[in-house]
């Protein structure tokens, strides 16, 4: 990824989580991978000021307690969280999931490849894209100050 902040993985399936971890290792993606098992836990992680905010979020949809779309509905209304790009990584190819996710401003919707080699390729593609793309600064306050200074400078 573009910077060294963690990647937040929201995934209830421990095998799938392990596969992501393994792909990160094989591709030498150095970002720490923070793993939470449902939307509720992910929100708790994101809302705890003691935790580093992730540079991107990899989100499964089908999870117990709070599923991916429910998580998005909350995350995308929280000013401190909404700017973090969320990439859906799921087995669901359901039209309604795709449409609903993009309505909630996801920055990609990737269907988990079953084959490990293809899975690694998918993670490589995600990593390359989010290494090239700029990312918003971690500290919202800093960025807001920047924007104010920027407009005051006569944009």
């Amino acid at each position: 990824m573009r910077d060294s902040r963690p990647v937040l993985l929201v995934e209830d399936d421990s095998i799938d989580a392990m596969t992501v971890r393994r792909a990160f290792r094989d591709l030498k993606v150095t970002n720490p991978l923070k793993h939470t098992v449902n939307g509720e836990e992910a929100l708790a992680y994101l809302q705890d000021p003691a935790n580093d905010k992730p540079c991107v979020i990899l989100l499964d949809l089908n999870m117990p307690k709070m599923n991916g779309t429910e998580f998005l509905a909350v995350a995308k209304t929280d000013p401190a969280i909404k700017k973090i790009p969320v990439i859906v990584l799921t087995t669901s190819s359901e039209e309604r999931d795709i449409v609903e996710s993009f309505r909630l401003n996801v920055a990609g919707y990737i269907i988990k490849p079953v084959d490990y080699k293809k899975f690694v390729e998918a993670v490589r593609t995600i990593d390359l894209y989010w290494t090239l793309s700029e990312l918003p600064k971690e500290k919202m306050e800093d960025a807001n100050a920047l924007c104010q200074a920027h407009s005051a400078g006569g944009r």
Partner: protein
Amino acid sequence: MPCAKPILLVEDDPIDALAIKRALHASNVTDTVVHVPCAREALACLRSPGTDKPALILLDLNLPGTDGLEFLQIIKGDSCLMNIPIVVLTASDEPCDILRGFDLGIAGYMVKSSGYEGLLETIRIIQNYWSLSQSPSHHASCNS
């Protein structure tokens, strides 16, 4: 203008637009690219009735009239258009533009490289990612 094509490029600089289109074709993008030079034309194209929405919008920020960020605000406030993924492709690397873009729900922010080789690499990475990703366009829900 009817808009039934998969990629909408909003770019006011004709030289940049040409280079981006060439890079898209070189990256095996078989989809037709519709190029419009300003936000007003982009909106007219997106809102023209009975046409499919593009799978992706590539958006310059520094546009004449309505600028890129204002355009984003309009799109994200329109329930028929809000689910189209938008990737910013601009010369500006201002942290403020980056933050505002992501606040408005963009799906990537790429700074234009100066040379053609760099641009080609950028387009290739965008193309790889968006051919891997699903897009809601084929599942269009809103026909006005």
